[in-house]
């Protein structure tokens, strides 16, 4: 057992990066599900996007995907930037209207 695991640990390859991304994904999921603060949820979403990016770039290095994976990661980053700008504008609006940033207290459809 030890003989098998040690060389596997010594040379980080595709699976190592995938495991890191899986951990980040579940942590992001945890943040999205368990926190009430909108901004905290947004941070969880950023973490999930990043874990997806790690996957894409790891694939672009170790498989025949080549640079395409990096390209898609680049677009993910662009979209994340746009998302953050709009989401935070919405959060500020929400705060000025409801005076709270807790998601479960914002339950009326009419402003």
């Amino acid at each position, binding site marked *: 057992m030890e003989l098998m695991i040690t060389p596997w640990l010594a040379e980080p390859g595709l699976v190592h990066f995938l495991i890191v991304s899986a951990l980040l994904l579940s942590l992001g999921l945890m943040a999205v599900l368990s926190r009430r603060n909108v901004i905290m949820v947004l941070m969880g979403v950023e973490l999930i996007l990043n874990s997806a990016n790690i996957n894409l770039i790891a694939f672009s290095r170790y498989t025949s995907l080549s640079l395409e994976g990096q390209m898609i990661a680049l677009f993910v980053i662009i979209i994340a930037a746009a998302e*953050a700008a709009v989401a935070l504008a919405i959060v500020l609006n929400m705060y000025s209207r409801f005076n709270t940033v807790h998601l479960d207290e914002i339950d009326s459809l009419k402003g």
Partner: protein
Amino acid sequence: MDLTAIVFYLFSIVTVGAAAIMVFSKNIVHSAFALMFSLAGIAVLYVLLYADFIAATQLLVYVGGILILILFGLMLTEQAVTQKFKAVTVNMLPASLLAAVTTVLLVYAYATTSWQMVMPEERSETVYDLGILLMSDYILPFIIAGVLLLIAIVGAILMSTRLTAIKNEEQ
């Protein structure tokens, strides 16, 4: 263990550890700064994966842009100006269950799949090739992304001007 392995383990511990601090921290500003360390660690992982341009973009956009936006959001919603702020958590049990199940499933799937791997290409740079790709195969997504960013900026500005309009009406 060679240098790459050491760097990989060091920065994956930093990344995952900082992400864990971010999720479980009581103080939301601590969460935001933990996210900063996590994102910087991810940038180092990108460098290990021979994606230097993406790594720099990650720093510039995530750390220099999005994180500052998030911090501004925190400070402007008056949640974070005091140290005493306590974060509230809900649904702790189902969330942790779901996260654990996701982790186990994903790791199992990753470990058991036989990946179609090729020998890693030794690239000295990616910028040139990325630029060629961006201007040839990916020209349409590139333009659409530009338009999307423009719309996002206009939308964000419009919303924040409406915000001040609402405040003025109230006064």
